[in-house]
């Protein structure tokens, strides 16, 4: 196990920011960390990177304990903090050299490592500028370069894609995916498509508690107890007639010919619909199962926890 979190908790006064979270991440896995604002994502990451000590519980990163071996943990972790704080009055290379010096003082590979990191995140064109002069997307790349510089086994990225334009988003996602082939990555986000596109596994936390821990695909099927099927007929059909179908619970009528049926057992429901349409001599134009998106799952899970 590359990362093993055990009953990790953080309490501020009366408030439990993180409440006994446990999970494990295998080497080479990309873990998406989801949750509404204030759910405890950042606090968890701050604890894993040794910025905040946990109130109770602990975590092992590369078999190193965050409580008793904080310096060793920091050596094998690359961290991109939330809001990507950087020294704006430093030059890109000067800043990367500074971080490199801290990790590996006097290392002869420094220039090579810096150049490698710059190329990896695509900063070549901007490498001679001051950080303060860069656009948000490029600042984000500097933050990523900083996290990658010392070749850490584990990357912890707190909202690495906020504020990027769609092209930059795609680039950074691809980068995270590529990095995930050899490194263990935890990253937090608000964007569901990102999770589907990038992550091997998703953890959803809400109010400091872990409410889901699964593959993105499994999460969808686990929660799809009820299905929705959108149908469109060539000729007007009556909603009442459709309601007679055994598996249908509820019908949304969009127009005389266009409905959404809610019911159980998507396959049987669609077979029945087809048979019904044939018996009515009313050709089917559309029949489409609506899958529950991760957004719905997220809302459902976090709303349950709120209650």
């Amino acid at each position, binding site marked *: 196990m590359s990362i093993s979190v055990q009953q990790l908790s953080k309490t501020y006064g009366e408030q439990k920011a993180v409440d006994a979270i446990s999970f494990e991440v295998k080497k080479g896995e990309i873990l998406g960390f989801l949750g509404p604002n204030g759910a405890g994502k950042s606090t968890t990451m701050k604890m894993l990177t040794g910025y905040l000590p946990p109130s109770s519980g602990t975590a092992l990163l590369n078999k190193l304990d965050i409580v008793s071996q904080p310096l*060793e943990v*920091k050596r094998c972790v690359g961290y991109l903090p939330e809001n990507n704080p950087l020294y704006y009055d430093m030059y890109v290379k000067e800043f990367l050299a500074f971080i490199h010096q801290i990790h590996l003082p006097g290392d002869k590979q420094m220039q090579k490592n810096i150049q490698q990191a710059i190329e990896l995140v695509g900063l070549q064109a901007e490498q001679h500028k001051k950080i303060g002069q860069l656009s948000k997307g490029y600042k984000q790349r500097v933050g990523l370069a900083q996290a990658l510089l010392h070749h850490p086994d584990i990357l912890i990225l707190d909202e690495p894609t906020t504020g990027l334009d769609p092209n930059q988003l795609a680039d950074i996602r691809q980068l995270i995916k590529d990095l995930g082939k050899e490194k263990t990555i935890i990253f937090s986000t608000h964007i569901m498509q990102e999770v589907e596109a990038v992550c091997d596994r998703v953890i959803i936390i809400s109010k400091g508690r872990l409410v889901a821990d699964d593959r993105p695909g499994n999460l969808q099927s686990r929660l799809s107890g009820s299905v929705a099927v959108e149908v469109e007929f060539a000729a007007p059909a009556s909603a009442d007639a459709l309601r007679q179908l055994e598996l249908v619970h509820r019908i949304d009528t969009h127009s005389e010919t266009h409905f959404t049926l809610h019911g159980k057992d998507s396959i049987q429901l669609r077979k029945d619909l087809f048979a019904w349409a044939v018996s009515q001599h009313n050709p089917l134009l559309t029949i489409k199962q609506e899958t529950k998106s991760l957004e719905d799952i997220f809302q459902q899970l976090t709303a349950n926890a709120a209650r």
Partner: protein
Amino acid sequence: MRAILQKEINLFFSSLIAYISMSVFFIVMGLNLFVFEGNIPDSQYATLDSFFTLAPWVLIFLIPAITMRTFADERQSGTLELLSTQPVTDTQIVLGKYLATLLLWLFTFLPTLLYFVAVKQLSLTEAPIDSGATWGSYIGLFFLGAVFAAIGIFASSVTGNQIVAFLAGVFMCYLMYDAFFRISSLPVFSGQLDYLIQAAGLNAHYDSISRGVVDTRDIIYFLSVIALFLIATRTALESRKW
């Protein structure tokens, strides 16, 4: 720690901070010695006394101005989190920043040795000016600046606002330098207590070294005050962990 020291030094010298601090101190003190009322050519006394009387008051403002951004700025911009999640201890961060400030203070301090040379040249009498006392005063002044730097860094570590850090730094420097002396001269304390209260302030030890006797007790006093404020700074950084 070396990386942090180097970064801070680079920052001082790549911005105007270093040059302004060096020139302000050198020019203000030079004007006071040679141009303004009561200057050496007018008064006909080849002595640096007025320099050593005024310098602490200038430093009370100058050093907190140098140190005010050390931690306040990092706290404000969030880079303190970046720095704290690198493999360095809080002690190394504090020491790196302190040593950088100390070096800048050394660079600000060294040019004023020229005044000593100048005054020596001005002296007409066969007997040169009291070199012992002057060297003592220079040593005392250096330590005074070193203490102010520790105080200024501490003030910067407790807030995210640079102006608050500056004002708090000035106030604490003043307290440590002058307030103990003022309080000790209140009639209530006349007798035994006044000496003790005086000895707690910087003023008494600065004066003591200025007489030309470098007493280990004074040096130990200065070093302890520096250590005290640096430990307090580290505690302020660690307060996030409470």
